[in-house]
């Protein structure tokens, strides 16, 4: 799962870097893969991966301030703990988790950037980002289930 997620993160990074359409706040969807990873991997493996991927992706930021390291690791831990508490069979779980995940991710990132001396900004486009997150996370879950059943 870690390999698949790292490939997906890299593809998203390349898309966001090479095409202006994807470079805006709507397609800041790295967190969806971290949320997905939290369901299907061990804590320590996923946690270390989220740190490394946050470090790698964050280094390409125009002003790197460690925002992705913090956000990825905190988001991973939060979702890892939540999945054990909440009922993951409930449909609302799969809608609210990516929706809230977007804003938690943005909040962590903006807090870190504020500490580094940049302004705290919440764009209205993050609503679209959150809606897109719901679709992508559910699509990934659908693909995973389909593969799991077909192989079984």
């Amino acid at each position, binding site marked *: 799962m870690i390999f698949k997620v790292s490939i997906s993160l890299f593809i998203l990074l390349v898309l966001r870097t090479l095409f202006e359409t994807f470079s*805006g706040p709507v397609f800041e969807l790295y967190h969806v893969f971290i949320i997905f990873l939290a369901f299907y991997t061990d804590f320590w493996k996923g946690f270390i991966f989220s740190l490394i991927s946050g470090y790698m992706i964050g280094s390409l930021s125009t002003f790197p301030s460690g925002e992705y390291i913090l956000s990825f690791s905190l988001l991973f831990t939060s979702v890892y703990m939540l999945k054990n508490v909440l009922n993951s069979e409930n449909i609302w779980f799969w809608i609210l988790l990516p929706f809230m995940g977007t804003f938690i991710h943005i909040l962590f990132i903006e807090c870190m950037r504020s500490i580094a001396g940049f302004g705290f900004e919440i764009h209205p486009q993050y609503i679209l980002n959150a809606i897109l997150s719901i679709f992508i996370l559910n699509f990934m879950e659908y693909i995973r289930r389909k593969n799991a059943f077909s192989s079984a």
Partner: protein
Amino acid sequence: MQGFWKNFLKISMIFVIFLTVLVLNFTDREKKRFFRFPARIISIPIFAFGEVVYEIKNLWKRYVYLINVEKENENLKIKLLEKDIEINALREKLKILERLKGLLGYRETFQYSTVVGNVIGYSSDGKFKGILINIGKNQGLKEGMPVVSAGGLVGVVKQVYPFSSSVILITDKNLSVDVLNTRTLEKSILTGDGKDGCRLKYYLKTGDVAIGDVFQTARISEFFPRGISVGTVIELQNPDEGLYKEVKIRPFTDHKKLNEVLVIIKK
């Protein structure tokens, strides 16, 4: 009880990471060393992909997408004629200026050479306005070098990798440029609005500025050479409160249409 210690370990680990990132932010503001290594590694495949995408885009633009080219050609011919007349008038003025310079004993003290680069990518974080160009350390680029295009000022080189560099655009809120009103010669500070435009900071209410005024770099800080066109005033507001006018500037360069850029290498 074991579960408690496991959770305690997890939370303390996150706390340590949080502290580390915080300490990094306060001790090394530029954070160059910490983020340089992975950025260099990731920039290589992105540069390779970027070159391929750039070539494909160029192929499409130059050979396939030829609708309205004839019409555009006619318009350009007319514009060329107009520019010819303008250039001749300017040549006359240049001759006069050279004679005056000779009289005053004025001498150019700074000379600049340039390197041409292509835009191959954009900022991968949603917040900052930046572009990626296909020239880097191997071509002699250094951080802080000004980037211009045919229209005017584009931005400043922010990070340099071996084969590519990231450029922060003048439309970014974190970049400030000292500028000069070409009509009134008043100086001000230009900064990005975070979208596609710019605004002037600290332009006093008593200052003389009008819609259509052109701003160029002023070289107060010696960061940019003097005389690079930056943008034109499109909106003016005089708020009741405060000491300053709100002046919106539209940059001459549209970063969405940028293809080739020039990096000014200071000697």
